[in-house]
């Protein structure tokens, strides 16, 4: 298990090399450079060239990339914002909490809606109620998060002036972005829950449980849901990782001081260092969440756990296969 985790973490190295290279290339291809915003009309061409040289913009992209990677490997330096002169790591970690708290509130809301609704949909599968739930999830899925955000803002902020329009440090400011993020998430998870439960509903062990006299509620919770967790967790893991990596759109709409908006700003300013550093940190976080999901699998399903153990103790292979 530990070996598996270490291998997974080591895999991050080639992934990050590719990711950073792609980021540098894309920023280089994008029209404009970081100095464009610093140039004032009074500057002479010489002064502009000097400014460009300061950021190595007179040298090819590969030189800047090599320099960045050299600093990263030798000093562990993720770079410094070329605009604000703020160290990237500091900028990221000081804003991370805002993103994480928003992600988790959206996630919790989504799960609270999705799992019971999914169970209900599976229970009434094929009836009008099932169709209603399907319709609800389809609306949630097809409605873009930004549009929902704007509609919520229009009603709850501008019409009835109940909730703030952006981050202001109160709990109220979490309401709209949480609903916007949670609704889409709950639609996806609800559909997955429904199909996962329907999938296990035909299993023989449920009949065994009923023949023991287990009440239907417990059949659902102890026997069905525990077996349906794996696909639900897979889906959730991807969604958590994705939303931790940045609800960039929602953060942008609500002027949220999170990492997602930081990244969008950095890209707009063609801030190579900041962009690249943020992407590295985000990618790492993404991978770690996925790794945690894999470990959770083993906790939920003993069969997966034994598969990990088996690869370590080869001699047990025969026994488990039988």
């Amino acid at each position, binding site marked *: 298990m530990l070996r598996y985790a270490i291998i997974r973490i080591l895999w991050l190295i080639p992934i990050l090399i590719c990711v950073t290279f792609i980021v540098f290339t894309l920023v280089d291809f994008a029209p404009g450079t970081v100095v464009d915003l610093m140039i004032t009309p009074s500057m002479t061409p010489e002064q502009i060239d000097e400014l460009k040289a300061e950021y190595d913009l007179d040298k090819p992209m590969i030189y800047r990339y090599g320099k960045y990677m050299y600093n990263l490997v030798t000093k562990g330096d993720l770079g410094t914002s070329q605009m604000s002169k703020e160290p990237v790591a500091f900028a990221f970690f000081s804003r991370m909490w805002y993103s994480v708290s928003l992600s988790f509130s959206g996630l919790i809301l989504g799960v609270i809606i999705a799992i019971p609704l999914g169970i209900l949909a599976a229970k009434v599968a094929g009836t009008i109620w099932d169709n209603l739930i399907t319709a609800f999830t389809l609306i949630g899925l097809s409605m873009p998060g930004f549009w929902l955000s704007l509609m919520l803002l229009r009603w709850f902020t501008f019409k009835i002036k109940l909730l703030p329009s952006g981050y202001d440090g109160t709990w109220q400011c979490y309401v709209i972005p949480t609903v916007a993020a949670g609704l889409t998430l709950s639609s996806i998870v609800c559909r997955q829950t429904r199909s996962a439960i329907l999938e296990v509903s035909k299993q023989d062990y449920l009949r065994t449980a009923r023949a023991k006299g*287990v009440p239907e509620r417990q059949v659902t919770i102890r026997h069905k849901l525990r077996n349906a967790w794996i696909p639900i967790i897979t889906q959730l893991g991807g969604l958590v990782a994705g939303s931790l990596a940045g609800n960039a759109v929602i953060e942008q709409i609500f002027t949220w001081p999170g990492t997602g908006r930081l990244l969008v700003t950095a890209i707009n300013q063609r801030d190579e260092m900041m962009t690249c550093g943020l992407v590295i940190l985000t990618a790492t976080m993404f991978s770690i969440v996925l790794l945690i999901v894999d470990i959770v699998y083993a906790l939920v399903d003993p069969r997966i756990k034994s598969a990990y153990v088996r690869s370590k103790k080869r001699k047990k292979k025969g026994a488990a296969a039988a």
Partner: protein
Amino acid sequence: MNETLKNNTAAAEVDTRETVLEVKDLVVQYVLKEATVEAVNDISFSLKEGEAIGLVGETGAGKTTTALAILNLVPDPPGVIQQGSISVCGNDMLNLDVKELQKIRGKDIAMIFQDPMTSLNPVLVVGEQIAESVRLHEDVTASQAFDRAIEMLELVGIPGARAHDYPHQFSGGMKQRVVIAIALACNPKILIADEPTTALDVTIQAQVLSMMNDLKEKFNTALVMITHDLGVVAKMCDKVAVMYAGRIIESGTLEDVYNTTLHPYTEGLFNSLPRINNKGSELKPIPGMMPDPTRLPKGCAFAERCKYATERCFEERPASRYVNETHTVACLRYDEPDFHIEGVED
């Protein structure tokens, strides 16, 4: 003295034992959009405490449906119990509410399922699956229930320490023992065993059967043994009911059915068994197939495959008749006083 009483043959016994299971005129159908499957058609039988009955028949004869109906667990939809009554220890199973049913299932009547590979929940340790039943039906704490689960495992020949293992860590035979331990956890008065050994190797089969026999004696459990294996019935049961297309076509004590076989289908079953003493002899399968349960013929369901069938057999459905106090047969040809089947070959 008790020993000698028990060892008397079922027929000779003066029965003071209580009837624990009574199935009367049971009809179960699976109503689908395209067709109605007539799975169980008007069957009746009863069982006294400690008694064992074997329900024998081919796949699709309605044996498992009968068993599920007894627990009132026929999957609904599409299964519908159209008529009949089932009494388990005096409880009318078909008219109880769900709560009452849940009290009886697992406590008064328990079932061993056919396929041990899929009958256990893969994500719960086996001890927990046994303890669940104890916790539901008895006033015990979780840890007392688990201790009981360990005892049950040991009773079926699995070391108690393995209670913390998951089903995938057991072999097929051991899983079946776990399934049996679950069924026996609350000392049920009636045990339904649905082909408990079909999925197992022959050597394991013998072990599991003799273990079941011991436990049955020990707890004085009434047993409904569902099987297509006539040998298993001979070993385990006092009574036999042979089912065909959802009907009991012949029933009686072991001696009745095995020594004075009456129904042509039962004869065919015996004749289609491989003879171990006569390796040269060919297998004699019953020709043809069981009729489609969505379109049962109006006459005798077996007529098409029956070498004794007359025209009347295709027109008229035979009723069950008693030939002695315990032996019944459903065959029209016995209206003719001198009719007899060719007999089971040796």
